[in-house]
């Protein structure tokens, strides 16, 4: 029995009988607390959402809650302005975020899947030590790695945004960032997948081996198909992590509009438009569209990813 079921009032009383009413009334404080806390939690987001549909004159002189008294003033002009203004580069940044997030997800997940398999099902010297090292690396601050990687990129490979753009090869300016995200994402990727692989029943492997299946067949035909839920969690997790990342993008690609993702662009807008600008509200909501769609449609997998490895930082 779940706790939720245990906590339900034992309402064997008939509907609207005095006992039924007493049972339900006694639960009111609970409902008020739950709904009140949730509502309070939503206030910041709702405030920004309402503000983003208010004209500048309203935003500057009165709070967002006053807007409901006068709903005719709602407008989408903030959105049209901020998206059309050439100086904000929001559309470009939105596209850049995709160009950064998708490969930066594919790389660590696919490389991690192959690497996780030996950690789960092959015996080799140093396996436990290496896995322990990966768990340790989950907590290591990325700040520790920026300077040498950056100087390797810039001074030794001459991989600056300008140089890479000058080659004219599409996508090349993001390669440094993709690789960095792959390296940073791998410990978590391997950790989560190896734990999942290990939990698969060993009879599966034994019977497959008796049937004469090689390592490749076992991996591609049994392990991968069974691990789709774990892979889905990891993909969503890594995608949102990269999409929402500010620091790594700031370090490796910086603010050049042609390559900067939405987070960097948005942070730049707070300076260039000034905090409290009406356009900023619309820009902020625009940046949330993709994470919110991903989150709302695939929440189950996202939560599962969080539960599977709550050590990622």
């Amino acid at each position, binding site marked *: 029995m779940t706790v939720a079921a245990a906590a339900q009032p034992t309402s064997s009383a008939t509907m609207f009988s005095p006992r039924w009413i007493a049972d339900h009334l006694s639960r009111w404080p609970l409902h008020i607390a739950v709904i009140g806390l949730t509502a309070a939690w939503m206030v910041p987001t709702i405030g920004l959402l309402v503000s983003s549909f208010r004209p500048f004159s309203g935003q500057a002189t009165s709070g967002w809650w006053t807007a409901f008294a006068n709903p005719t003033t709602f407008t989408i002009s903030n959105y049209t302005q901020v998206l059309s203004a050439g100086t904000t580069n929001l559309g470009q940044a939105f596209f850049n975020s995709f160009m950064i997030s998708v490969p930066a997800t*594919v790389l660590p997940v696919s490389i991690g899947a192959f690497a996780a398999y030996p950690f789960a099902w092959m015996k080799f010297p140093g396996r436990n030590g290496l896995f322990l090292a990966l768990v340790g690396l989950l907590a290591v601050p990325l700040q*520790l790695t920026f300077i040498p990687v950056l100087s390797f990129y810039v001074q030794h490979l001459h991989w600056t945004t300008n140089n890479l753009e000058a080659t004219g090869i599409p996508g090349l300016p993001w390669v440094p960032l993709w690789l960095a995200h792959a390296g940073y994402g791998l410990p978590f990727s391997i950790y989560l997948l190896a734990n999942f692989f290990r939990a698969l029943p060993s009879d599966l492997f034994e019977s497959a081996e008796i049937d004469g299946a090689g390592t490749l067949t076992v991996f591609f035909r049994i392990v991968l198909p069974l691990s789709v839920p774990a892979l889905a969690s990891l993909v969503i997790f890594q995608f949102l992590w990269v999409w929402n990342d500010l620091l790594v993008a700031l370090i490796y690609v910086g603010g050049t509009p042609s390559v900067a993702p939405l987070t960097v662009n948005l942070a730049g807008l707070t300076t260039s438009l000034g905090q409290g600008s009406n356009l900023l509200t619309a820009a902020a909501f625009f*940046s949330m569209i993709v994470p919110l769609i991903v989150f709302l449609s695939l929440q189950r997998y996202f939560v599962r990813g969080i539960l599977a490895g709550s050590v990622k930082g």
Partner: protein
Amino acid sequence: MDFSLLLQDIPTLLVVILGVPVVLAAYIVGGEYLVRRLPDKNRPQVRPWIWVGPALILVAAYLLIPAILTAIQSLESNNVDVLDPGTWGTNFVGFKNFARQFADFPTGGAWVAIRNNVIFWLIFYTIFTLIFGLILAVLFDRVKYEQFVKSLIFMPMAISSVALGLIWDFMYEYQPPGEPQTGTMNALVTTLFHHDPVSWLQDQWPGESFNLLNNLALIGAATWGITGFAMVILSAALKGIPGELLEAARVDGAGEITVFRRVILPLMMPTIVVVGTTLVIFALKAFDVVYVMTSGNYNTDVLAYRMYNQLYLASNSGGASAVAIILLVAVVPVLIFNLRQFRAVEARR
């Protein structure tokens, strides 16, 4: 925007999405082909390394080796290229970079950032999040619309900290006294408490050397974003407590508060500890919220932001490396704790 760019880059995206897994699979299949040519007894020795090879190379190149090089850089002056081992030691400055970060206690060097990280953020961010997460998990567990309210609380987890910072910039907006307040927090303060509006992000109450208020404002914003994370994990642990146990306690006449304190809390302690250590790591690495909301001004600096600042604004890679090492040292106790937990779990397997 320029849509021709889009047409040019989308094929690249497809090439990466399809190409990377195909190349990797080809590498593994090719490796397996070679392994099969080996004598029987050598196969199990070679095969794992082919599979983990690419991952180990990337992790070494992006995490392990750079971390070691940063440690070396922190002992050298700025004009050293740490990637060239020939130059190591030529500009050795010992602990000078660290000495500069630790100069002039309590307001000079990195002290403000250290204080904010290891006292304010570590304590308040962790405790607030755990308390809120626990309260929400326990309350929500008792209503039928649990999933719905949970996703609403969890939603801020999906958005970027930059957007989160903007949301809270609007919450904390300040207008001079007498003007209509446009920020929610100041509207509450002025109408409910008849207090003058507060400049939340700048007000260094109770004093400049111990400015709690604006740091708490930042921590509050970050807490709002991460509580859903704590709630989800704690809620899963709560569901794992057998109902019979709670039932038995209630039958014995224990009130709800006693059941919570004597049964639920002790049983959830291991999970609370795991969530707590994760939050401590988050607290020590705090960056985005500070970057967006205050840029570390008004004594709200944190180590991660200071490191960025030293690197880009001050072009001081020696100093930046020293700050990064300080950050690592702060994380190490948590890291060791994590490893111990991990080994304990492994031993039970």
